[in-house]
């Protein structure tokens, strides 16, 4: 029976040729079937983050073709990419801006999941794996920042690794491990390059596959109703109205990607990324500042003792990662979760204030 159906419905052409041999149809169908409640409002943030990661893979691979990860050659190779290679400035600027947008959209994605309580049962693991993705993405930003080997890159890394060295107990060892020596040097550049182009992409790829698998298995959360749990009474509700993942949701998602691509090209064209003077380990430039997403921690370190300034952000991130294990209430509507929402607002205001003052000279 099944064979009959297949023989009559196998499409012609190249698709048919492959299908006849591999029978991928059911697999592809299963892949394209993700339950999307009509009430779901994702704002396409996760998908946009994924799209930006794809852009990073493409532009990063291209940049790696011309980049030399040694202190003698790194700066000149970046300079050559920017000024000699055709479209080099564009590829490099797109890589820079997509990195920033990826952090931004990831933060918005986390916020969306939090407000809609989509981290609650049964999606705790999706959130925790997502926490890993967030940390890896920040790691990408931190390691990638050093690679141009200009003054800003060098000194931001000196300060950044020094901060990591402030972690109680393991700090000094961590500092040595990150730098590959006592100073930020050739060894540091080699490490950061290897981590940036090999270790983190593999880690991110693996965790991303898990994250997407979980999303695929569970479908999207309905922001209006908690998921029914086994052993608890299921409230009487009309059956969930779904909309097709393919092509409806995918089409909307691709339109969002187009918009982001346009923004990216505009940013890269109007604000191409520059290059400061070559790194000089003997001269610290004035007003050295990290990227915007590290400014809050940077500012915190000016206000509190180093141990507190290092431990507090780490603890905060850990609490956020394991949030689904701490907050196990059944409510999903924001107005019924006043404490959680108040904590989030407080945290956001705190981060915004610290970032604002951190951005001031």
């Amino acid at each position: 029976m099944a064979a009959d159906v297949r023989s009559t419905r196998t499409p012609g052409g190249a698709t048919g040729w492959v299908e006849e041999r591999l029978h991928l149809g059911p697999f592809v169908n299963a892949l394209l079937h993700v339950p999307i409640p009509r009430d779901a409002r994702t704002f396409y943030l996760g998908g946009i983050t994924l799209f930006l990661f794809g852009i990073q893979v493409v532009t990063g691979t291209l940049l790696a073709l011309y980049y030399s990860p040694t202190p003698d050659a790194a700066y000149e190779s970046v300079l050559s990419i920017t000024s000699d290679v055709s479209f080099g400035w564009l590829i490099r600027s797109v890589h820079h801006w997509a990195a920033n947008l990826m952090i931004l959209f990831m933060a918005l994605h986390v916020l969306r999941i939090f407000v809609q309580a989509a981290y609650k049962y049964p999606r705790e693991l999706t959130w925790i794996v997502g926490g890993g993705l967030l940390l890896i993405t920040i790691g990408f930003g931190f390691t990638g920042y050093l690679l141009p080997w200009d003054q800003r890159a060098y000194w931001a890394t000196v300060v950044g690794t020094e901060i990591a060295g402030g972690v109680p107990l393991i700090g000094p060892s961590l500092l040595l491990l990150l730098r590959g020596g006592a100073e930020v040097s050739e060894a540091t550049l080699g490490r950061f390059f290897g981590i940036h182009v090999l270790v983190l992409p593999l880690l991110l790829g693996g965790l991303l596959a898990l994250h997407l698998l979980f999303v695929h298995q569970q479908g999207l959360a309905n922001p209006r109703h908690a998921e029914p749990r086994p052993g608890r009474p299921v409230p009487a509700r009309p059956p969930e109205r779904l909309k097709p993942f393919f092509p409806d949701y995918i089409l909307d998602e691709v339109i969002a990607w187009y918009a982001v691509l346009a923004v990216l090209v505009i940013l890269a064209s109007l604000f191409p990324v520059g290059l400061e003077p070559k790194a000089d380990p003997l001269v610290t430039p004035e007003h050295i500042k990290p990227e915007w997403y590290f400014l809050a921690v940077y500012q915190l370190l000016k206000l509190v003792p180093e141990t507190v300034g290092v431990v507090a952000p780490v603890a905060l991130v850990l609490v956020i990662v394991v949030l689904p294990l701490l907050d196990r209430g059944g409510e999903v509507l924001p107005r019924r979760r006043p404490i959680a929402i108040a904590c989030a607002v407080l945290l956001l205001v705190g981060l915004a204030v610290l970032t604002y003052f951190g951005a001031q000279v």
Partner: protein
Amino acid sequence: MSEGRPPALEEGGDRTAAGVGGDVAGAGGDEPAVGGFARRRFVRYLLGFSVISSLAMIVTPIVGFLIPSRAATAGAGGRVLVGTVQALPVGSGAIVAVGSKPAVVVNTPGGVKAYSAICTHLGCIVAWDAAATMIICPCHDGRFNPATGAVVSGPPPAPLPPLTTAVEGDEIYIVSG
């Protein structure tokens, strides 16, 4: 490929129209079936145009980026001093760098000659063999005539490309570019 796509698009289109409701569905309902198909084909062409132009927009900078810049492919032009006549008496030869490319310079009884030192067979660098008075490629024993660059024996398919030399006083120059 073409048979797989239309049903998906049609399904999507229909559902979107139904979802949007009112105006789109209404406009479609007033038109005859033939007009509906024409519009669908038009939309499909529009979609194809958008996809192709988007791909072109993405692929153009990538391909441009991959093509090496002129500075990386061009050798240095102008005159390159390769040595003195004293250092290169008649019957001797040497391999010298002209920009980033090697040249073989031989002082033959008929004057100073220079050729590209890249063997026309598989790209190995040839050498001057004073005993055999021949330019010889070490890879597959291709032999070239020092006076003309022509292949004497071996697998090379073409003579070594000649370079222009100039002897000014005591100094030997290769003129290129």
